[in-house]
């Protein structure tokens, strides 16, 4: 008798553990963004430049999702790292170093350094204080870029960047064909890194920090160190995004460090859905394509409509587009 019941238990045990241990496996729908991106290359040939911007910005939003969505670190100054990455790549390209991949690498390292250093200070706080401090870091950097015009070009922006062909083969063209593929490829690598982190034990502990910081302390987690690590990684990814924008537009301005840049990014992420890894892939294209269409008609109305849409998302569509999908799915399943 004991034999039978323990065997039953074993069967259950394996099923439960298997289900839990397989959560990180790739699901079919995770291929959709990439297939869509490839299809769009052929469908919308005159929009390759916009596409490249969208991919770079998705990477930027993805890096923010790691902080806000997974670790619960709410920041209003994420543009700091985007801007630092953009300037790092830009300054190199304008001063004799033209190889694009090494520029991206340097941008990542410099942004990570700034993320680490500022994280040491700002991550001691939480809530509104943290919000203010992240904002201050970005504002300080913007002022620094403004004053240090001999290097950054100040308010005129950094001009005269020259970028070599990728691998010495693929030249950046006027139509953005190369930029499209280049940004998509870098985004793919960035996404792989982010996805791996999210499903790792480290990533799960970040979710723990978001859900209940006190409990994480009580189970012996070095909470501050974990936050600093993800802050640094996120800063590096944001820096890469900034470098991509700098290289593909051959222009870096003070706006890369602006509060509005950080704010806009949060809006895009909220529209797509925070903390779901794919919110960036939905929110960013929606926002940027709508902006591209509407801003040609009237830039003032554009902000009005985006404002109205945000109110709608916050009131009716909690969790953004992906949140609505999830609830729809749950309802269908419970029937």
């Amino acid at each position: 008798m004991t034999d039978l019941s323990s065997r039953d238990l074993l069967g259950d045990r394996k099923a439960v553990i298997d289900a839990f241990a397989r959560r990180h496996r790739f699901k079919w729908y995770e291929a959709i963004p990439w297939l869509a991106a490839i299809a769009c290359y052929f469908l919308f040939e005159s929009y390759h430049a916009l596409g490249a911007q969208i991919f770079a910005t998705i990477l930027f939003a993805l890096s923010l999702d790691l902080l806000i969505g997974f670790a619960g670190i709410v920041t209003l100054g994420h543009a700091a790292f985007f801007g630092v990455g953009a300037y790092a790549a830009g300054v190199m390209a304008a001063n004799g170093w033209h190889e694009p991949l090494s520029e991206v690498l340097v941008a990542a390292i410099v942004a990570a350094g700034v993320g680490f250093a500022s994280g040491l200070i700002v991550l001691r706080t939480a809530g509104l204080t943290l919000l203010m401090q992240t904002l201050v870091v970005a504002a300080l950097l913007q002022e620094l870029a403004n004053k240090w015009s001999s290097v950054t070009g100040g308010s005129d922006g950094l001009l005269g960047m020259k970028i070599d062909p990728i691998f010495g083969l693929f030249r950046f063209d006027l139509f953005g064909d190369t930029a499209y593929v280049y940004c998509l490829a870098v985004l793919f690598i960035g996404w792989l890194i982010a996805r791996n982190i999210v499903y790792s034990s480290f990533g799960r502990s970040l979710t723990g920090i978001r859900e209940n910081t006190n409990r994480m302390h009580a189970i012996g987690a070095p909470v501050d160190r974990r936050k600093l690590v993800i802050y640094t990684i996120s800063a590096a990814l944001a820096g890469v995004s900034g470098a991509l924008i700098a290289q593909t537009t051959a222009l870096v301005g003070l706006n890369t460090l602006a509060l509005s840049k950080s704010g806009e990014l949060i809006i895009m992420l909220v529209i797509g859905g925070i903390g779901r890894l794919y919110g960036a892939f939905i929110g960013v294209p929606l926002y940027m394509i709508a902006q591209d269409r509407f801003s040609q008609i009237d830039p003032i109305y554009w902000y009005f409509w985006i404002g109205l849409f945000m109110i709608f998302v916050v009131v009716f569509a909690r969790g953004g587009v992906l949140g609505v999908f999830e609830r729809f799915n749950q309802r269908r399943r419970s029937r």
Partner: protein
Amino acid sequence: MAPALETKSLVKRFGALAVANDINFTLERGARHALIGPNGAGKTSFVNLVTGVLTPSSGDIHLAGESITALSRAQRVKRGLVRTFQISALFKKLTVLENVTLAIAERVGAANDLWRPAGHHRDIIEEAYDLLVPLGLADEALRPVTELAYGRQRMIEIAMALALKPKVLLLDEPAAGVPPRETGAIIETIERLPADIAVLFIEHDMELVFRVAQRITVLVQGAVLVEGTPAEIAEDPKVRQVYLGESKH
């Protein structure tokens, strides 16, 4: 051998209020020790001081003979000092299994692993599941904590602590908020704890206290009123006086 846990002249003041007033307390190895006292006596504050949530105004805390007063919360946990919360503090949106898995991942150091999927640490998941079985939580392993009744959540609270393989376990009102017919399971779980763990439990339920405790300390207004065996405490006139006016029950 040094006792499992010791506080020496422990003091904590919030302005004029002393929540810990010169507490000299000893928890022997393998002890089953109850800490009782009226509401607001400073019992939870004591746990917070010992575990490093609060910094003492003065005094010293020793774990197995070594001072831990200057250590961080995490460092104390790593040395085997583990607590539960009076009000359940779980990862509510996560599944029961994941709650326990997170604790084990911290204990074995896997939570610093940035690259391997958590699912590849199969030994951790198995250990977590096997811990849930004797607590009667295995059937609900894959359900989010919020979906469970509060009595069940109190069990997870204990599971989280056990997952850390404590040497000293501080249970802050483990049966608080549990409906009477479910307290039995909690009491049994506490009685079944491995004998080598030193257990300090805070409790208002006198039935539980007198059933489990070998020693009892009574705390009133941040200070130790008396300490003794259950028989001594039951007959102490000072304790009777305190509990006649202010008992919860």
